[in-house]
Each structure stands twice: as structure tokens, then as C-alpha cells.
């Protein structure tokens, strides 16, 4: 039996394979319907020129009603971008990944949003509470309850 989440992800994957991803986003691996990797780079003028990051999506059986767990990969020499909303363990504080997730969004839509979040960054710095957060951060960023007050991103 194929669940709703698997069917929906299969459709998204089929679209990625036939239509390709938007510029700067590339599919690295999608061997199953639980974990996908993408590379993401910011095109044009930005603070992240020539940097390439790896994004990890983890899906549960509630997708797309429940949001995917999205974070930057920080193992095997990969680094999370230095950004006021990205913790050094790869966790991202972005409302669309939490309480503003909508099931009409897709994996590619999330990639594009994060790409533009990086592109609009004005100063490369870690979140102020980075050290304290990563000391106790749960493995799954969805278990963190972020508060989003910055509307500029």
C-alpha cells in the first residue's frame, strides 16, 4: 500500500527528475521517501558567493500535512551557512518550516525560500544564542519550538 506521503513525494520527485530544480539547487540523493539531500548555492551577488551548502529533508508519514524536518548538513566537512537564522548544528529558524508550514508547499518551494533567505542576508553572523542552543538542541529541529519575530526574512 502506498501512503499519501509516499505518493505525494513520488510526484514531487518525478517533477524534479523531468523538469529539473530551479537554478542553484540540485538533488543529491533521494533513495527513499524518508530522507532527501539537496545542494543549494546562492546565485548572483551575495555574501555566500562560491559557497555550496547541503540541505537535508526528513519526511514522516504525516507529510504533507506535517512539515518536513529541514536542516543543513554539518557532517563530513560540510558546513552550515553563517546566517542569523542558521545555527552551527545546521538547524534553521524559519517560520515556513514550523508554524507557517502549509501542505501546499513542496520540497522545491522550501529550497527556493531558503535560497532567498541566504540571498537577502546582510551580515554574516551566527544567531546570538547559538552556543546555548546547540548544547541542548534536539536531534530533530522540528522538536524545537522557534519563535519568529523577524519579518524581513
Amino acid at each position, binding site marked *: 500500500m502506498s501512503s499519501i506521503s509516499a505518493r505525494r513525494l513520488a510526484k514531487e520527485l518525478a517533477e524534479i527528475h523531468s523538469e529539473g530544480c530551479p537554478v542553484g539547487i540540485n538533488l543529491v540523493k533521494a533513495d527513499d521517501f524518508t530522507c532527501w539531500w539537496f545542494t543549494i548555492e546562492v546565485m548572483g551577488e551575495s555574501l555566500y558567493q562560491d559557497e555550496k551548502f547541503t540541505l537535508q529533508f526528513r519526511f514522516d508519514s504525516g507529510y504533507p500535512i506535517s512539515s518536513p524536518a529541514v536542516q543543513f548538513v554539518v557532517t563530513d566537512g560540510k558546513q552550515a551557512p553563517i546566517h542569523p537564522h542558521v545555527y552551527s548544528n545546521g538547524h534553521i529558524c524559519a517560520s515556513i518550516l514550523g508554524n507557517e508550514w502549509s501542505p501546499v508547499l513542496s520540497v522545491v518551494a522550501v529550497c527556493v525560500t531558503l535560497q532567498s533567505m541566504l540571498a537577502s542576508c546582510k551580515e554574516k553572523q551566527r544567531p546570538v544564542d547559538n552556543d546555548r542552543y546547540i548544547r541542548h538542541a534536539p536531534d530533530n529541529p522540528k522538536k524545537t519550538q522557534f*519563535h519568529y519575530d523577524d519579518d524581513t526574512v
Partner: protein
Amino acid sequence: MTGFSDKRLDKLMNDIQDPLDFPENTAAPGLRSLDTALRCPICSEFFEGPVTLICGHCFCSLCIRTFLGTKQECPTCRRTDVNEGHLRVNPVMEETVLSWQNSRSFILQLLKVGESRQNGVHGSKKRRKIDDSDSDLDAERIGSSSGRGARDDDSDDSTVKISEVGETELHTPKPNDFVPCPVCSKRVLLKDINIHIDNGCKEKADPSSSKSQWAGILGTKSQTAKSTKRKGKEVVSSDDEDLPLPKKSYGTLKDKAIKELLSEHNLPTTGDRNTLIARHQQWVIIYNANRDKSSKQRKSIEILRQELKQWESRQKGKSKTEISDATTYQREQKSEFERLVNAARPKKTTPSSLSPVPQVRSVHVSFHKDDNTIVLDSEEETPRIS
């Protein structure tokens, strides 16, 4: 490439139909976007029991009911003043989707034929499309034979077909002709139409039917074949009047009452209180979503029960993995454990509990200086502003 790969993923990928089956806009204008437009933005499948919110956005009934259970917001436009009560069935969309599903494989086949005529290539995909179209044509045949007649009773079934084949529009109906009721679109004898409408479209109120109704009330067994037919029709009409299941406020109900709610629908009454509540909530969603389909698309209650069972086994699997992830759970709850340990030993830790350290550990709170972003990883709401 034949689609018989033993990989689960490949099988699923081949099984799936999506708008990409159609060529790009330049080759076949509008077809791909038409196929997209008739799909639910949540599940990406064709609308099943389409319903519309007050903002006009349309979803499968099951999808949007499930989502509204988590958050009262339109997924498309984020309008927040929406709830289940605003859902309106969209029978026109349902009809459109069904017609499109019927014609879809035929159109794909036409496109394929046109394409192969152009370049003389027979792709391996063509085989699949033709197979699809065969099965779809079958479905259409079944649909047309059983579908139309489903709402009418047996006696006027043949009449319906004849009048559909012949010209229906131009001749003036005589008193003994069947005409569609303007309210429920059921076909009724013209001379009976006013009685039919006055009775709230429930029953063609000819004398024999009222007789059989009285017979039913008085308990006299009527022996004619006609009266059994009437009974069958009454079942159909009472189905149409089925009301949606109301949402319950489980907080006010005792376990026993919840079990009664479940056994009303012949559902299992095993498990603890939370399981019972979750089961009933899901049942209400499944039941009401099924109700939003037109009567001939609805599934039987038995199938709905099976779906509930499948849902429950999936939920079980989910919660098991969550619990089995012990290290994460331990790490997550570490601060809570520490807090409880400290609280349990008030005398020893009195001096240190006054220091800010345990407080910081009890709830991971922090502020972004520039944008006031607070980060919590506990449910408690005691942010410590530093």
C-alpha cells in the same frame, strides 16, 4: 524500462500519473495545466470529494479535514477564519474530475498516436497508455450502466434510458412523462411533480406508496413486489439525508461515553482514553469526508472501517519509533529530569537553585538581540530574559 522492476520505488513511480504525462504547453496547449488544476494541492491527486472553503479554494474533503484538525487556516491563501463548518461540497468539480479521468487516457493515446505519426517512433510508454485506456474504458462502461440509474428506482430505469437516447429537449412533457425534478433532479412523472416537491423530494407520493408507508407503520406485511421495491427506495432516500457526524468535546465525556460513540458505528473499543479519542476523531473525519462525495462515489461503511484500521496501524508504527528513539528522548528530557531532581531535593540544593544556572537549564530560552527571536525547546513558557 518495462516497469516490472522489483524496486518498490520504481514500481510506485510507474504507478503514478501526474500532469507531466502531458507534453509541454507548446506541444499540447493547456493540457498539463488542466491536469494540474483538477488536482488537490495537498495530496496532488485528482480531487476526491472536492470541497470549497469560504475563500473559494478547493481540496479533497479528507485532506482539508485532516489539515483543519491541526490548524484552522486555508493552506493556499492562509486565511485564518476558516473551519470545518465552512466546507461546502463542490459537485461540479467532482463531475469535472470524473469526466477528465475518463477522457484522460484517451487524450494521452491520441497525443501518442499523433506523435508517432510525426516521427514514426513507437515508444515503450505507448503500451502502458493503451493498457490504461482499456481499463478506463471499462470503468466508464460500468459507470454509465450503473451510475445514471443509481438515483432512480428500478421501475423508471428503462424510461430514463429511452428518454436519454431520444430527444429530450424539444417535446412538451405529457402528464405521464418523466421529468427531472428541479430540486433533486430525480425523474418523476409530470403529474406527480408538485406532490413530489411538496413532500420535500422524499418520495413520489402516489397512492400506492403512501399505502405501503402506512403498511410499514402499522406493521402489516404487504406482500406485493411493488412494496418491497418502495422499501428499497426509501433506504436510498434516507441515505441522502444522512447528517455529518458532529465533533465531540471529549473533555466532557467519560471513557464509557466515548466507547458508546465508537460502538454505535461498530468500531473497536480497545485501548486507553487517548487511543479512543484519536480513533473517534479520525472516524469523524473519514466518515464526513466520505459524505462529501456524491452518492455513487461513496465507499461503504465497511471499507471506511478498514481505512480507519489501516490508519490506526500506521499511527501505532509511528509512535513506536518515537519511543524507541531513547537517546534522543533522554537528551531532550535531560533538563526536565534535572529540574525534577533539583525540585525533589530542596534542602541540599537551596543555595544553587537561587543561582540562575538551573533556571537556564530548565528551559532553553534565548533571545536574538537584533530581531527578538526566542528559541525554546521545552513547552514551558517561562522565558528568562537575559
